[in-house]
């Protein structure tokens, strides 16, 4: 395939959407540091540029390599997660790994690895067996093992994303409705078991979510302050750099998990809805790719990546607006954080690669 042909086929609208989100992120981070490119906004923008570079490079990579490497990637990811539990960097929270001075969260690549491995698995299954439960059991195992490992770290937010992303691939692959219903019931039954597995701080987060006013200055503080910031923003917001909740540090974690709140305070409902619209467009664009490609592997990968991205947005916004417990889920491309942004761009790179190299017309 020629260079020009490849460049022509690159889904530029996806890249533009993602760059727009990165730019919004940089602007929010500029405000989060009280009107300064240091320490977050500048690096965020540079990482965004680097991410687009990754997408463009991946456009030239044949998606079949991903297909071939997918199982290995999942096994490698699981191995790293196990290693992390053994030699973890913090006394209680083992999320980060450091190689040659570069720290990253191994749970991030695990998300993509799960989707690719599941897509390959279902791609390899004969069509006529798709109605039987046996086919789905190994897939459930592929989700469950990393899920439990990440939960043990403990990182409830990421574990939840792995689970939701994996399950959406199962659903997209054609999991019969009766199993979908069964899974919902099973989840409800499993809830108390999961609850007992949670750490005390996770439990307190959930309890606080259910009744934030019970602990105004403790765990409920984040949720209450976030709702105050969002609500006081009103329709048009208090203006750029004018959000008192954010600028006076009432809002916690405003550069990461609560960045959406900060934008809401300074740009109001209008700003928030604009961002939601961008995410919706991005998710649907990726989902649309699944209709254009040939292999089931490609289709399932795109669906999985699209849903994973969207779940991140949904959980984050629901969390900061007080609809879900504070579980720790960044807002893709806007929240500050190198590993998570790189993961999103790698996902977009995979989508690009698939679209270019596995289009139906070819």
């Amino acid at each position, binding site marked *: 395939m020629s260079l020009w042909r490849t460049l022509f086929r690159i889904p530029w609208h996806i890249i533009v959407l993602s760059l727009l989100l990165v730019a919004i992120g940089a602007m929010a981070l500029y405000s989060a540091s009280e009107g300064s490119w240091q320490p977050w906004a500048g690096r965020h923008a540079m990482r965004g540029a680097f991410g687009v570079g990754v997408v463009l490079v991946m456009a030239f990579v044949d998606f079949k390599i991903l297909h071939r490497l997918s199982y290995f990637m999942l096994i490698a990811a699981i191995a790293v997660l196990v290693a992390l539990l053994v030699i973890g960097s913090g006394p209680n929270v083992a999320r980060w790994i450091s190689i040659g001075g570069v720290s990253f969260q191994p749970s991030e690549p695990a998300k993509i690895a799960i989707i690719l491995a599941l897509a390959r698995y279902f791609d390899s299954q004969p069509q*006529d067996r798709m109605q039987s439960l046996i086919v789905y059991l190994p897939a459930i195992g592929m989700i469950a093992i990393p899920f439990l490992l990440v939960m043990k770290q403990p990182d409830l937010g990421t574990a939840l994303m792995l689970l939701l992303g994996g399950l959406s691939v199962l*659903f997209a692959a054609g999991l019969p409705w009766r199993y979908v219903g069964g899974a919902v019931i099973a989840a409800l039954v499993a809830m108390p078991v999961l609850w007992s597995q949670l750490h005390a701080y996770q439990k307190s987060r959930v309890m606080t979510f259910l009744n934030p006013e019970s602990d105004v200055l403790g765990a409920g503080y984040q949720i209450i302050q976030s709702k105050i910031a969002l609500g*006081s923003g*009103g*329709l048009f917001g208090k203006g750029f750099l004018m959000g008192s909740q954010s600028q006076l*540090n009432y809002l916690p974690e405003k550069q990461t998990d609560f960045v959406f709140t900060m934008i809401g305070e300074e740009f109001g*409902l209008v700003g928030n809805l604009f961002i939601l619209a961008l995410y919706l467009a991005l998710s649907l664009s990726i989902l649309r790719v699944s209709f254009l490609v040939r292999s089931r592997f490609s289709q399932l990968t795109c669906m999985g990546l699209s*849903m994973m991205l969207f779940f991140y947005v949904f959980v984050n916004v629901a969390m900061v*607006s007080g609809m879900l417990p504070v579980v720790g889920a960044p807002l893709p491309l806007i929240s500050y954080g190198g590993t998570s942004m790189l993961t999103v761009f790698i996902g977009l790179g995979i989508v690009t690669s698939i679209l270019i190299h596995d289009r139906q017309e070819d």
Partner: protein
Amino acid sequence: MRRGKEKDLRRVMSRRGFILAGATVSMTGFLAARLYYLQVAQTSRYRRLSDRNQFDVRVVPPVRGRLFDRKMRLVAGNAESFELRITPLYADNLQETLKLLATIVDLPELRQAYVLDMAKTLPSFREIMVRDDLSQRELARLAVRSALLPGVSFGKSLRRIYPQGALTCHITGYVSPVTQREIEKDETLEIMPTLGTGKTGVELVFERNLRGFPGREKIEVNATGRPIKVLSDVPSAAGNDLRLSIDIGVQLHAAERLRRGRWDTVELGSHEVQAALAQDAELQAHLAVGDNMILRDGNDRLVPAESGAAVVMDIHSGEVISLVSAPMFDPNLFTGRLLNRDWRRLNEHPRRPLLNRVTSGLYAPGSTFKMVVGLAALEAGVISENTEFFCKGERELGTSVFHCWRKGGHGVMNIVSALEQSCDVYFYEIALKTGIQKIRDMALRLGLGAATGVNLPDEKSGIIPNHEWKLATKGSVWTPGETVVASIGQGYVLTTPMQLAVMTARIANGSKAVAPSLLSKSADASSDFAPLNISESALAIIRRGMFKVLHGAAGTANKYKLSKDYGGMAGKTGTVQVRRISLAQREKGIVKNIDRPWAERDHALFVAYAPIKNPRYAISVVVEHGGSGSSTAAPVARDILAKTIAERGVT
């Protein structure tokens, strides 16, 4: 076949893709609805909460006005005191820190619980006052351990002090922390928790002038409580300073002199006194409230200082030069943390040190009331200067017999000699002729029977009875016998020492109905009193009688003349029975005062003015259960007047 299946699955997957797209759109809609609820429907509520976060309005308490005596000596001021504060944000464990603090400074459990309560309701960066009024010792002990006390800091606040201590307690009154009841009446007090309010005395009466107006600072604060910028700043306005009419020099002498009475003070440190003290609960109670004067009485017994009242006023301006009520108390006890123990001691003390006897103590005026009766009779034309009556030592009225204080009687008396010797029978006669109503009218004109309006709270009006009063309060008609009893200031008649001083001042002044004031006045402010409208000739006759009390050959107080150097004085004794004397007792001979239990002894009264020519000061002295007006109260009044004239002069 396989191809068909393939197509089938493609269709399923496409359908699933659409379902996922639909889910994405609807979940986004759900988020949008939630955001609309927060940012549009509820925005005003959250905006309010945001403002409450962002702005901190701090009330700056005003500095309370000071009180000075007439020579600008400080009577009530403000001293810097240190308070202990804690910031829950920086305290590792608030409860533990408080417990540790309680081992270093006095910190009751109740206060600890209060601090913990406050910490739950206030933002954690907000300082909470743990203890105020730290002593130097406590400060030193805290400073040594400060490393162990994260989040603990010190702050300065103002505390009311009364440098004259007990000496001016019944004049200044005191300031103490705001009570819940005051807040109910005046909500603005709630936001000024560090500011005490006047509870009695001048502090209460002039509360509005002294308090001043609080300032207000609106500050933008960040989440850790650090002020970012001051948005508005209204400074507090200090209260007004007041200059009182009191002269501390005279006050000091008067307090000492009144409490000594007719006895001598003893050295508290001596072995004999200490030994006696150990056994005498009454004396211990006296020392415990801070009264450190002990007397040796005529029977060689150790007794507490006398209680009673003495008040000196300027007969022209009405300015009160000295106002003493004994026993006294230390008003400084109330400004900080009043200990329960101290409160109980003051409140349960049998002689009631908290009572201001000058304005709230009610005493039968006894023979000091005879000037009123004499003036009423003279003005009514019932008698003239030369009208005479014979005193045989008693006066029959119907079936009753009313005795004169002198068993053998005084013989022939006129108004001047009757005052000089305080002949009761003479006043029985003229009172019966004058009638109670005219006596009452005269009493009211001289300032009795109504509050004098001096700047002190809870002033009593006393009682000057008449027919209507008797009917209204007792439900029976007035009898002539009651007029007889009233004529010597006993029976229903009740007055305050302040009223007696006003009465004396008006008699001495002669033209103006002078009224007392605790505020220092400029020299020419005496003219704004109402005219007295009592015949000058009648007043002159009464004043001659009062002169004779000191200077007549048979004057009841002729042993206690004020030295000519001070211009001499004129006055009237009063000895008031607190117990009815029965016929049996009278026949056996009255037991001497000193041999009776303290509470059954007569009250000793004396009213006087000085100098005799161009009088300037009037005084009234009451020594509770002090024996006789002449031997106990007269010398007290004489010495206080001498000191007044020595300190202040007469012009």
